[in-house]
């Protein structure tokens, strides 16, 4: 498998703070890599560096992109769903999704029939077919997240960068969005790099997980290897229990009361109750 994106020895300093230090990470074509880590670990900065939005030292390789200085060329390879997208007041869903065609049409050209066809197809695929004339700001949280995803998909990029795509959503909509991304990934061979706070969801939907802590990638591998009681305690400062489930590890936070009760019972190495 070729790497769709890879970073080597990535260093980012923002306002004198060393945010990322020697980060190495790669995502193969069609792979879904989740970047997890505590608040302030540098997850968003990592995505922003990939997008060329912050100055960096080190190497970023994007498959098929020779000249990284041209923003439009980069936007044809990488599509971005920000954590808190700016929703322009009064902009219609159709226009919002068509913004995703900007890197293909150029900033001065009108959208073509092909651009409109792509936008319509994506709106239909994301169950937003009847929403074209609605203002984006009038949508519910779940619909809005799909509209933002639709704009990113309209870029027809190979790699989808998702920054906390589920933060503002209830459980059902979290699941909907991630299932949708997963289905689209399989349909279109997309590579997905996402940051997620919910570790259980990260385990469910990621092929691989990388833990970012204090600006460094400290662990990387399949969910079952990375999501251990020890790693989570060390990097998140959280006390959890890990429940094995056929679909992947389930991370359950424990309370102080629960822990003292459990202390009297034998506990396995992995933190599971026998």
């Amino acid at each position, binding site marked *: 498998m070729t790497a769709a994106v890879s970073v080597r020895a990535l260093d980012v300093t923002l306002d004198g703070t060393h945010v990322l230090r020697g980060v190495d990470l790669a995502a193969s074509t069609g792979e879904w890599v989740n970047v997890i880590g505590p608040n302030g670990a540098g997850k968003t900065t990592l995505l*922003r560096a990939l*997008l*060329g*939005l912050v100055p960096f030292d080190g190497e970023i390789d994007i498959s098929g992109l020779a000249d990284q200085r041209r*923003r*439009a*060329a*980069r*936007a*044809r390879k*990488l*599509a*971005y769903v*920000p954590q808190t*997208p*700016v*929703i*322009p*007041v*009064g*902009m*219609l*869903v*159709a*226009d919002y999704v*068509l*913004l*995703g065609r*900007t*890197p293909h049409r150029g*900033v*001065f*050209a*009108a*959208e073509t029939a092909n651009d*409109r*066809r792509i*936008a*319509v197809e994506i*709106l*239909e695929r994301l169950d*937003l*077919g*009847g*929403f*074209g*004339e609605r203002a984006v700001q009038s949508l519910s949280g779940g619909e809005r997240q799909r509209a933002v995803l639709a704009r990113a998909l309209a*870029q027809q990029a190979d790699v989808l960068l998702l920054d906390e795509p589920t933060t503002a959503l209830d459980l059902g909509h979290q699941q909907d969005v991630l299932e949708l991304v997963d289905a689209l990934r399989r349909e279109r061979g997309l590579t997905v790099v996402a940051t997620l706070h919910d570790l259980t969801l990260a385990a469910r939907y990621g092929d691989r997980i990388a833990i970012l802590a204090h600006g460094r990638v400290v662990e990387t591998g399949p969910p079952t290897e990375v999501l251990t009681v020890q790693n989570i305690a060390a990097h998140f400062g959280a006390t959890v229990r890990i429940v094995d489930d056929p679909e992947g590890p389930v991370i359950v936070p424990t309370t102080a009361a629960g822990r003292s009760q459990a202390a009297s019972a034998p506990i396995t190495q992995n933190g599971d109750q026998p």
Partner: protein
Amino acid sequence: MTATQGGDRAETALRAAGLRPASLVAGLAAVVVAVTAGLTIGPVDIAAHRVVIQLLDGLPGVSLDSGLSDAHAAIVEQIRLPRVVLGLLVGATLSMSGAAYQGAFRNPLADPYLLGIAAGAGLGATVAITSNLGDGAGALDPVPLAAFAGALISVTVSYAAGHLGGRSTASLILAGIAVASFLTACQTYVLQANSDAFRQIFAWILGRIATSGWSEPALMLPYVVVTAAVVLRYRRALDVLAVGDEEAAALGLEPRRVRMIVVLAASLGAAAAVSVSGLIGFVGIIVPHAVRLAFGTSNRAVLPLSVLFGGAFMVLADLAARTALAPAELPIGVVTAFLGAPFFVLVLRTSRREIW
């Protein structure tokens, strides 16, 4: 079948965005009404249909008899028409520049004077008047030239200072405020030292659409053309910029470059407008907002329609300025502010949640 219907519906919506033919027709109609009123109404009564025929007669290859006497024809063609055309140019430029500033700064309260154009032009005009370089009348008078220079210098200094401050739109706006305050202080000082020129300077500041033949419109035209060509070309880029610099950059735009080109082009036109007509407030805010309320927020519609409705509004405001207290003329800045201030409050109230 359902899917097809949904697709058709979405596709219709996709086509509907931007400048609709009906909006364009409405804008052109507003211009025609304003121009006809501006040419017809005045101390000398001239029938509207005769005015229209007289104008058509002036077109190349058209020969019609309007029935107007030579004196009346001269009033229409040599006195009222240049003034109406100047009103169109000034109104169109201030509105378009205001809309461009609002789009570039993503701030509904931005106007063409945001980066110190008014203060710079005011200082330039004040210095020229107090130095007895001219009286503020006539297109090649030193007063408009000094105002133009002052306006361009203040925008340039604001832009340079704003970039030093971190390149965000906020630092640019703050730099504009600082530069404007400084220049206003300078102007006040010059004014205090030359209180005999106060009346003349005050009249300049309140603004007027006054012409001596075609020299003012001719002077203004090249700047309007350049500003319109650049700003209208960037209308789609401004729509992309609406999602903020970071997302716009992720969509392949160069946000800072787009903002700089649009703001400098808009400033050039606004500086030219200020130099020939003085400081006419609120047009750059009320017209674009009225257009947004009526026709939607896409810059593909807002920018061209601001040109048309801005021109029409200014011609009508000038008509009110010269007829309300005829034969005396109200300063046009009084008329636009009298209409503009209440509207501005309304905009503030309705868009409060969205701005903050």
